[in-house]
């Protein structure tokens, strides 16, 4: 079974809390990983989720690191043909602009399961393509 690494990282405050945007995305990520486990098992690929906490000083160096999702080392924006955006979050993130994902003319603060599943499927099938130079 080949591994499909999925990394989700987000700011966690010193009180151990995160913002609603990241909290919501976290739930969607968990659901997406379950869906991908079922979807990719017959293909011999297993998603492996790594969740990383960013402390405030790391977050402030580059606020767009928070709520970033990497699948097989690439952002979901890469797999979906989208772009990284930003908008004010106003919770644990203070006055900073936090990451959004823009796909198909829509901007997402909480990344929905179906986008994550689609990105995972694209990444997985790319892993299977023998004509691609690795």
């Amino acid at each position, binding site marked *: 079974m080949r591994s499909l690494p999925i990394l989700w990282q987000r700011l966690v405050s010193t009180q151990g809390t995160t913002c609603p945007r990241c909290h919501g995305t976290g739930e969607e990520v968990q659901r997406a990983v379950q869906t991908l486990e079922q*979807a990719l098992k017959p293909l011999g690929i297993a998603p492996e989720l790594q969740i990383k906490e960013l402390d405030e000083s790391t977050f402030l160096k580059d606020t767009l690191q928070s709520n970033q999702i990497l699948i097989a080392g690439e952002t979901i924006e890469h797999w979906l043909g989208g772009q990284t955006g930003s908008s004010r979050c106003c919770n644990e993130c203070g006055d900073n602009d936090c990451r959004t994902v823009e796909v198909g003319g829509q901007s997402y603060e909480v990344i929905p399961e179906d986008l994550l599943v689609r990105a995972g499927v694209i990444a997985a*099938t790319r892993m*299977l*393509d023998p004509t691609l130079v690795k």
Partner: protein
Amino acid sequence: MKTIQIFDPAMCCSSGVCGVDVDQNLVTFAADVDWAKQNGAQIERFNLSQQPMAFAENAVVKGLLERTGQTVLPVTLVDGQLALAGRYPSRDDLARWAGVQAQAAETATASCCAGGSCC
């Protein structure tokens, strides 16, 4: 020459390029398919709304749809093997799978609207 099969989401027509609010991804992909066919690629497209049996009768596509739902569409098979799912292939993908020389792909891409002027 390998056979490339594209299983599209439900669309109103065979290419989805119609009406006033056209998805640019579909326009680009339709042009890439035309280009690949002109270069000898064998490409078939199946539309979920018009050819549902093609989806039901293909074990790879049917299995993906059952496990993942329509999020997985479009699905691309090359000689019956899963090559890509969840997005349309690029022109480079089609060229690589069909064995069309990359040089031809680059030339075709640059043949129009290059050098700051458009035809």
